[in-house]
């Protein structure tokens, strides 16, 4: 199967800021591909280069077989883009916004009526189709934006943090829609900073400081994590944290609720023993056990460890 998006050495600078740093990507068709990364990691910049909105400082990106920069207009016909910030018109009604988007995509009057009616129904916009977009709630706006991005039935959808500012129920509903779209043959690239959303993607790339630090299917990433995960439950979590910090075998520590997830050098055969040894006598523990890695651990390992490497280098 051919790739929907291929990037090679994709780089973008803003003055002295290196926003995207030599990114290589292969986004397979008819799947949901995730970009997971903290704010400022270069997700939006990468997506904008795919839309031909920003010129790469180096490297290139091919979208649906066309160069995103030189053949931007061809790409744009086949592409649906949902910007990070709501970018439909606040002073147009839901229906007017949809109608306008149909017209600029060159749909005929009959098709326009059909598509607008279909999207309004599909995305439960009936109740407020006469309301100005500026008066909608976060979830309603997001549905409108997705409806608008799919009007011309694009092969590829680029969604930039579509679920920020949306409640959990709306987020679940939104993902249902994405799976429906993929089932009908679309390819979706979605950026997020929610772990649970990243977990739903067929594949994902974790971005940090403009670089792709790990890439693969979520399950596989958890299996391949470059560390062992030890879960610590104890009375005084901050104390345990202090004791563990700086130990050579400990790669990173993250708190998950009332437990600590401690990432330990993979080379150690019995990582839980090592943690026990460190904590013994210095901190009252309840349980120490080895667990399978979550995507969160993968993320922490990828971002924190790379950060260390970068600092060491």
């Amino acid at each position, binding site marked *: 199967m051919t790739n929907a998006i291929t990037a090679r050495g994709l780089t973008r600078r803003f003055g002295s800021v290196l926003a995207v740093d030599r990114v290589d990507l292969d986004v397979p068709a008819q799947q949901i591909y995730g970009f997971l990364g903290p704010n400022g990691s270069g997700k939006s910049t990468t997506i*904008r280069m795919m*839309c*031909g*909105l*920003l*010129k790469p400082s180096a490297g290139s990106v091919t979208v649906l077989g066309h160069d995103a920069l030189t053949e*931007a*207009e061809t790409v*744009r*016909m086949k*592409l649906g*883009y949902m*910007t990070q*910030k*709501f*970018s*439909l*018109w*606040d*002073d*147009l009604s839901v229906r*007017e916004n949809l109608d*306008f*988007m149909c*017209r*600029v*995509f*060159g749909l005929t009057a009959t098709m326009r009526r059909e598509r607008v009616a279909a999207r309004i129904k599909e995305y439960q916009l009936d109740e407020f189709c006469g309301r100005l977009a500026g008066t909608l709630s976060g979830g309603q706006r997001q549905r409108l934006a997705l409806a608008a991005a799919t009007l011309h039935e694009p092969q590829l959808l680029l969604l930039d943090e579509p679920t920020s500012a949306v409640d959990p129920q709306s987020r679940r509903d939104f993902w249902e829609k994405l799976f429906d779209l993929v089932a009908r043959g679309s390819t979706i690239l979605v950026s997020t900073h929610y772990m649970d959303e990243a977990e739903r993607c067929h594949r994902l790339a974790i971005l940090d400081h403009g670089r792709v630090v790990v890439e693969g299917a979520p399950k596989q990433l958890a299996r391949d994590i470059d560390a062992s995960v030890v879960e610590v439950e104890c009375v005084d979590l901050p104390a345990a944290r202090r004791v563990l910090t700086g130990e050579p075998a400990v790669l990173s520590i993250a708190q998950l609720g009332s437990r600590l997830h401690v990432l330990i050098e993979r080379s150690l055969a019995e990582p839980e023993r090592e943690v026990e040894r460190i904590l013994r006598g210095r901190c009252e523990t309840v349980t120490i056990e080895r667990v399978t890695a979550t995507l969160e651990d993968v993320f922490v390992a990828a971002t924190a460890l790379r950060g260390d490497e970068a600092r060491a280098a």
Partner: protein
Amino acid sequence: MKWLQRMLAVASKETRQLLRDRVTFGLIVGIPAMQIALFGYAINFDVRDLDAVVLDQARSSLSRQLVGDLAATQVMRIAWQADSADEFDQTLQRGDANIGVVILPDLERRLADGAAALQIVVDGSQPSLENVAQGLAAMPILRRPGAALQDATSVAVRVEYNAEKRTAVQVVPALVGTILNITMVIFTAGAIVRERERGNLELLITTPVSRGQLMTGKLLPYIVIGLIQTTLILALGHALFSVPIVGSLAEVYAGAALFIAATLALGLFISTVTKTQFQAFQVAFMTMLPSILMSGFVFPFDGMPRVAQWIAQLLPLTHFVEIIRGIVLRGAHLWDMPEQVAKLGLFFAVMLTASVLRFHKRLD
């Protein structure tokens, strides 16, 4: 077909947004109404009841008749009759009178010789009064043989200026141009920048809409608005100042449409070179002042320095003022003024092309 469809999509979106924006919509009607009232009355030389001091040295029946004529214009009210030159000067110096009229002793002989027999003295510190003097100079009653004017401030009062026509008649047609210039540039200067500021531009430029479609689509609604304003100004001018339209109304609209397109293109260009609406309005204002000052609307074109005249040639308002005065006041035809029409067309083409070239469907 698709080209037109996309362009019209942009135009109708723009119109919808415009109609919903109460403030802007208010400006469409408000600016012309306010400006015509302001300019019309302020620049109008029919200033009423200025306090005048008269020094009648002739004391003849003719001199009394002249003074009566002046008073009858209602421009001045004869507040003081001075008995001596000293008293006359003091009255003016104290500021009790804004304007002084001196009738020389040998009035009849001077009139017979064709020499100046009447002096109008205005306060040079109040520039607006110079207009009054100019206005008075144009009064038919003073255009008797030999009655020339001088003024004591050595500011040349040009007897010929505005000789037959009242100022309002001159001002209102030119006002069409000035008001259109102001509103059109302001409206479109914000057009692209507004999309950028509100965050709509990123989506808009990711659609297949082309630069040309976007630019023309943004202009179209304002051409209609400009023509509505033209109608409003001419109607108000007719109602308030009895400004006639001698020439063809169709040509007035055709000329106005061309001028509107030219100023809109200028506004659009400003919109593509600025980053925020605030910047856009600043630049828009920068282009307006020279337009108003140099187009021959406020100051007579001939009296301007050479450099100013050159700059004026670059301003669409200059050419439009000539066109509209020609049609409205002289009943001229557009084809009588091919040079002005061509210059406006050229300005439009250059500005629109520059805007399209300046604008890229990219964020960087």
